């Protein structure tokens, strides 16, 4: 029997990749941290994690050639999971960076809590929050509305096609925090840091890509 290809966790110099890798390994999957565009072809699925600044992240993805290969891979149907900054980078632009555009896989822009008067609470939005999610979203299978997930971010996406939004969270106002389109999933929160609830969500994703 052929061993399934590993999951590639894309390293572009932004933040904590090891937690995502360990979470997948904890669930019995094989996950490798990769930084070369050529390595993406040898992966069963792609994970784009990351925390940090949008502009720096896009510069790094473009410079290494990962951006182009990543867009091609997602468009060709390779399973993809974006986490936190990895969700924001999918969109066209971000308030956080005037120079760099995003990957443009999803229509919409990323906006800052601070620029929106309804979000008068401390920024970053940091901590455990609940989700209002679509019960038919396969990523959310088995989750209860009372479950909490962990967030750390100062920006959130404005998603042009609202039908792609599969979860929202309330931080003085509701904002989209998970999106799904065909082979593409992304969460603004950190499933790899969300205890049992997060592991369940990652397991759901692993089941989908098998």
């Amino acid at each position, binding site marked *: 029997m052929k061993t399934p290809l590993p999951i590639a966790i894309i390293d572009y110099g932004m*933040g*904590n*990749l*090891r*937690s995502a890798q*360990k*979470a997948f390994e*904890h669930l019995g999957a094989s996950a490798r941290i990769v930084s070369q565009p050529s390595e993406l072809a040898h992966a069963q699925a792609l994970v784009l994690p990351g*925390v*940090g*600044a949008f502009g720096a992240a896009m510069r790094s993805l473009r410079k290494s050639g990962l951006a182009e290969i990543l867009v091609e891979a997602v468009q060709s149907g390779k399973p993809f999971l974006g986490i936190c900054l990895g969700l924001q980078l999918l969109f066209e632009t971000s308030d956080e960076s005037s120079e760099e555009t995003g990957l443009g896989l999803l229509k919409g822009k990323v906006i800052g809590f601070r620029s929106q008067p309804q979000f008068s*609470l*401390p*920024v*970053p*939005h*940091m*901590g*455990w*929050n609940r989700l209002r999610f679509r019960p038919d979203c396969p990523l959310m299978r088995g989750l209860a509305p009372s479950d*909490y997930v*962990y967030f*750390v*971010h*100062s920006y959130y996406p404005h998603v042009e096609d609202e039908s792609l939004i599969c979860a929202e969270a*309330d*931080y*003085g106002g509701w904002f989209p925090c998970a999106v799904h389109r065909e082979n593409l999933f992304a969460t603004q929160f*950190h499933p*790899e*840091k*969300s*205890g049992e609830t*997060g*592991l369940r969500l990652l397991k759901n994703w692993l089941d989908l890509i098998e």
Partner: protein
Amino acid sequence: MLAKRIIPCLDIRNGRVVKGVQFENLRDAGDPVELAAYYNQEGADELVFLDITASHERRQTTAELAARVAEQVFIPFTVGGGIRSIAEMRAILKAGADKISLNTPAVQNPELITQAAETFGSQCVVVAIDARSVDDRWEVYTHGGRQATGLDALEWAQKAARLGAGEILLTSMDRDGAQTGYDLALTKTITESVDIPVIASGGAGGPEHLCELFEQTHASAALIASIVHDGNYRIADLKQALKARQIETRG
């Protein structure tokens, strides 16, 4: 809405958990990774590891600790204690930590906060402030509470936020280890003056102290140590008490 967080703090020396009362009189209390896994199961929302190993004895140990924790614990954790360079921060974050806590080095070189925030993002940067009441204000202490700085805690907190801190870990030295409740006046003053989350620390002796902290101040989180390390309360007891008072907590 966002749940109020309960965060056990583990003091680490030479890779082992110790516990401070008024920053002195330490005693050994076990393996940090085992304890981290235990508190994760107990319902801790985050963990803080404070490495108090003298810096000349420490090399890779802090990063190794972070790596071992990250293998077993899937909740956020912060590592602090004597970290003073971007390279050290990178090693610890790369090992799996989510945030770095800066105390003395941030006071000595405030620019470090900005450098860290620009390199890793503000969400990775916690500025820890040890404050002691002096007349009608609070003064910042460094070096594990041994050295007065003359800095005003309120002004320093505001400056830290301005420089790029993503969170403040605010310890009342007057209350630390006393178990007589958080310093509500201090916490209220700071939380009303900065727009980043504040973790209150020092003084927790029972569930009532957490309830009054969250009812009377804008603290986002409560740091706890002795009350759970000593086995007097379990995290579930504390959360139950908060829930009974309609304070939102996870689990």
